[in-house]
C-alpha cells in the first residue's frame, strides 16, 4: 500500500480516537446543567471525566500535527479556510479546559456557576462545529487552483453542514449520557440513563438522515456498508441502555461514532478536500502529501509510539474504572484550603 494511503488511514484513526474520546467528555459537559442539579452532583459529573479529558483532547493536537506533517497542503487549506469555525473551537476549548481546572479552586457559588456555563458552552460549540467542518470537508468546498479556500463562514453554514453539526451534537450528547450512566450511581445514573434513551432516539433519526445524505452526495458501496454498521451499532447501544447494560451501551455509542467517522473518510478517499469549484483543484492523498522520506520517518514513529499511547491511556481508564458516587465526594476542597 502507498504510504500516502497509510497516512490517510492513520489520520482517520486519530480523528476516530479524538471524536470517540472527547465525544463523551463534550457530551458530559453539555449535560452538566441537565444531569447535575446541585453543586455536589455537578462535581460528581465533572469527576467522571476529570482524570481523562485532557488526555482525550491531545488526540486533536496529534491529528492536527500529523496532518501538518503528512499532508501539509491539507493542513494549510483546511486551517486557513475554516478560519472562523476553528477559531471558535479554540476559544471554546480554552474556556472549557480552564473551567475544569479552575472551578473548584474557590468555594463561592457564583464563581462555580460561571465556570459551569463555560464548560457547557465550551463543550457545545465544538460538538456542533466539528460536525459542520467534517460535513463540509466531505461535501466539498470552493477551492481554487492554488489550493486556497475561496468561500467564507457562510459557505460552511449550508444545510448539509448544519445537519452534520446537529449529528455530532446529538451523537456526543448520547455518548456522554451513556458514559455518565456507566460512571455514576443512584439518582445520577438513573437520570443519565433516561437522558440517553431520549437523546439516542433523536440521534438515530438525525444520524441516519445525515449518513444517507452523505451517501447520496459522495458515497460508494464501502461507505454504505460502514454507514449501515454505524446505524446498527447505535441501535444496539440504545437496546443495551434500555436493559441497563451500560458497558455495552457505551461500547455501542463508541463504535457508532467510530464507524460514522470511518464512513466519512471512506467516502472522502482518495480526496482529502474535494473542490466544489472544479474537481481538478481537489486536494488528494497524493497531491497534498509530504515526501516519501518524511512519511517513512513518521510511519516508524507512529508504529512505535501509537500502541504505547493506547496502552497507557487504556491503563488510565482502568485505574479510574470505578463509579463516582455523590455521597462519597470528599469535603469541599475550596473551603478547606481557605481554612
Amino acid at each position, binding site marked *: 500500500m502507498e504510504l500516502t494511503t497509510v497516512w490517510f488511514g492513520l489520520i482517520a484513526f486519530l480523528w476516530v480516537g479524538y471524536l470517540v474520546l472527547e465525544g463523551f467528555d463534550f457530551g458530559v459537559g453539555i449535560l452538566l446543567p441537565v444531569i447535575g442539579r446541585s453543586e455536589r452532583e455537578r462535581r460528581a459529573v465533572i469527576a467522571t471525566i476529570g482524570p481523562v479529558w485532557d*488526555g482525550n483532547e491531545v488526540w486533536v493536537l496529534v491529528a492536527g500535527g500529523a496532518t501538518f506533517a503528512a499532508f501539509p497542503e491539507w493542513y494549510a487549506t483546511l486551517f486557513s479556510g475554516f478560519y472562523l469555525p476553528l477559531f471558535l473551537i479554540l476559544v471554546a476549548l480554552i474556556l472549557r479546559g480552564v473551567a475544569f*481546572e479552575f472551578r473548584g479552586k474557590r468555594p463561592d457559588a457564583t464563581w462555580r456557576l460561571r465556570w459551569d456555563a463555560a464548560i457547557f458552552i465550551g463543550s457545545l460549540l465544538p460538538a456542533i462545529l466539528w460536525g459542520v467542518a467534517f460535513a463540509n470537508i466531505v461535501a466539498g468546498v470552493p477551492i481554487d487552483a492554488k489550493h486556497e479556500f475561496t468561500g467564507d463562514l457562510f459557505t460552511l453554514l449550508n444545510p448539509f453542514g448544519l445537519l452534520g453539526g446537529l449529528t455530532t451534537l446529538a451523537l456526543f450528547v448520547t455518548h456522554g449520557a451513556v458514559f455518565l450512566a456507566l460512571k455514576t450511581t443512584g439518582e445520577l445514573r438513573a437520570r443519565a440513563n433516561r437522558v440517553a434513551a431520549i437523546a439516542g432516539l433523536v440521534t438515530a433519526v438525525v444520524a441516519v438522515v445525515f449518513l444517507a445524505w452523505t451517501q447520496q452526495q459522495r458515497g460508494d458501496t464501502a461507505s454504505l456498508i460502514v454507514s449501515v454498521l454505524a446505524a446498527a451499532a447505535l441501535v444496539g447501544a440504545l437496546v443495551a441502555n434500555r436493559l441497563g447494560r451500560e458497558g455495552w451501551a457505551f461500547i455501542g455509542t463508541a463504535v457508532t461514532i467510530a464507524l460514522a467517522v470511518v464512513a466519512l473518510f471512506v467516502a472522502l478517499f482518495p480526496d482529502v478536500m474535494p473542490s466544489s469549484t472544479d474537481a481538478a483543484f481537489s486536494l488528494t492523498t497524493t497531491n497534498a502529501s509530504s515526501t516519501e522520506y518524511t512519511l517513512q520517518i513518521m510511519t516508524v514513529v507512529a508504529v512505535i509510539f501509537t500502541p504505547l499511547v493506547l496502552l497507557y491511556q487504556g491503563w488510565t481508564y482502568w485505574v479510574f474504572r470505578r*463509579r463516582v*458516587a455523590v455521597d462519597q465526594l*470528599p469535603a469541599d476542597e475550596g473551603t478547606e*484550603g481557605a481554612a
Partner: protein
Amino acid sequence: MDALDLARWQFGITTVYHFLFVPLTIGLSFLVAGFQTVWVRTGNPAYLRLTRFYGELFLINFALGIVTGIVQEFQFGMNWSTYSRFVGDIFGAPLAIEGLLAFFLESTFLGLWIFGWDRLPKRIHLATIWIAAIGTVLSAYFILTANAWMQNPVGFTFNEAAGRAELTDFVAVLTNPLAVITFLHTIVAALLTAGAFVAAIALWRIARRPGPDDAAFRSAARIGAVTVLVAGLLVFVTGDQQARVMTSVQPMKMAAAEALYETSQPASFSLFTIGTLDGSRELFSIRVPDVLSFLATGDFNGRVEGINDLQAGYQNLYGPGDYRPIIPITYWTFRLMIGAGALAAVAAAWMLWLLRRGSFRPNRWIVAMAIVLPFLPLAANSLGWIFTELGRQPWIVFGLMWTSAGVSPGTSSLEVAITLLTFTLLYGGLAVVEVELLLRRIRAGLPPEPGPGGTTGDEAERPAAFAY
C-alpha cells in the same frame, strides 16, 4: 494594519503569553517531583505538604499552558498557510512527534497524578509526576527543533517544481546544533524560573505569614534558591555557547544583539548604545573592550561582522532588500534578558545568605525582593524569546522565505483582527484569574496533613481531595 501585521502581532502575543507558563510548568514539574520524592523516601510529612502546596500552584499554571498551546498548533495553518505549505514536509514532523510522544505523556500522567493520590501505590504515583516531567522536556526538545530549523535550516533541499522545502536528513534536523544548545538553554532557564518561584513564595510566607510552617518553607526557600544559582550558572554557560552557534549561523542576529554596525576585530561589548533612528549607525555608547569578540567567537581577538557589511553581503546573495531586524529591539531585549537573569541569581544568593542561620529578621526590602523575584526569570524568558524571533526577521525561515511571504493569502484582515482581539482580551482576562488564584493559594499556605487515605474494595470511586 494589514492581515500580515495583525498575524504577526497575533503570533507574538499568543506565543509570548504561552511561553510565560511553559518554563514554569517544565521547571515546577521537576521541583514538585523532587519534593514528592523526598517525602516518599524519608516519610517527612512536611515534604508531602510542600508537594501539595506547590503542586496546586503548578496545576493552576499548567492549565493555562495547555490551553494556550492548542492555539499554537492551529495557528500555523490558520494565519501562515503559505509558510505551512512551504515547510510542512520538514516542520510538521517535529510537531506531530511532539504531540505523540510528549503531549500524551504529560496530559495522561498528570491526570493520573492529580486523581491518583488514593488510587495508586505510593511509588507508582510518584512515577506519574516524573513521567509527566519528562514529557515536558520532550515537548520542549521537539518544538525547539522545529523552531531551530526556522533559524538555521538544515537537512533539506529546495524542490523548485513543488515550490517547497523538502526533508533529506531528519537526523540533521534533530541534531541541529542550534536546536541542541537552545534546548539546553531553555531547560535550565525553566529550572531557574521554577526555583525563583518556589523560593520567592517560601520567603514571602516566612517574612509575612510566620508560623508553624516556617521550617518547611525554609527548606523550600533553600531548595529554590540553590536551584536558581545552579541553573543560573548553567544558563550562563549554555547562553554563551548559544551565542557562538548563533554568530556562526545567524551573524546578523548577533550583530543586531550588539548594535555592532561596523565589522570589528576585536569587538567590544556594549553596555549602552544609542543609534540613529534609521538604525544605520551609532551615536553614543559605553563599551567593554574585547568582550563581544569572546562572546561571539570564544577568542578575545576574534573578528565579529557588523550590520552594514552583513546587509551588503545579503543583498549580493539574496537580492535587494532590508535584511536588518529592528535593531533597538534586538539590542535591548538581549541586554535586559541577561540583566534580569543575573538579578535573579543575585537575589537567590542574598536569600541563601539570609537563611544561613535559619531565621532572619524580615524587613521590607526582603519582602520586596520576594515579590519581584518570580517576575525576573519570566521577564528574561519573554525577552529572550522576543529577541530570538525578532532577530530572525525579515526571514520566517532564514535564507529561504520572508515572513511577509508566509501569511495566509485568503484570510482577511478583519478575520485576523477579530481573532487577535479576542485572544488578547481572553488571555488578559485569564491572566487576572490565574494571578488571583495563585495569590489565594499562597495566602492559604500549606494544606493540612491528609489523614490516612486509600480506598480499597469500595465499589465507588472516591476522587482525591486534590481533584476538582
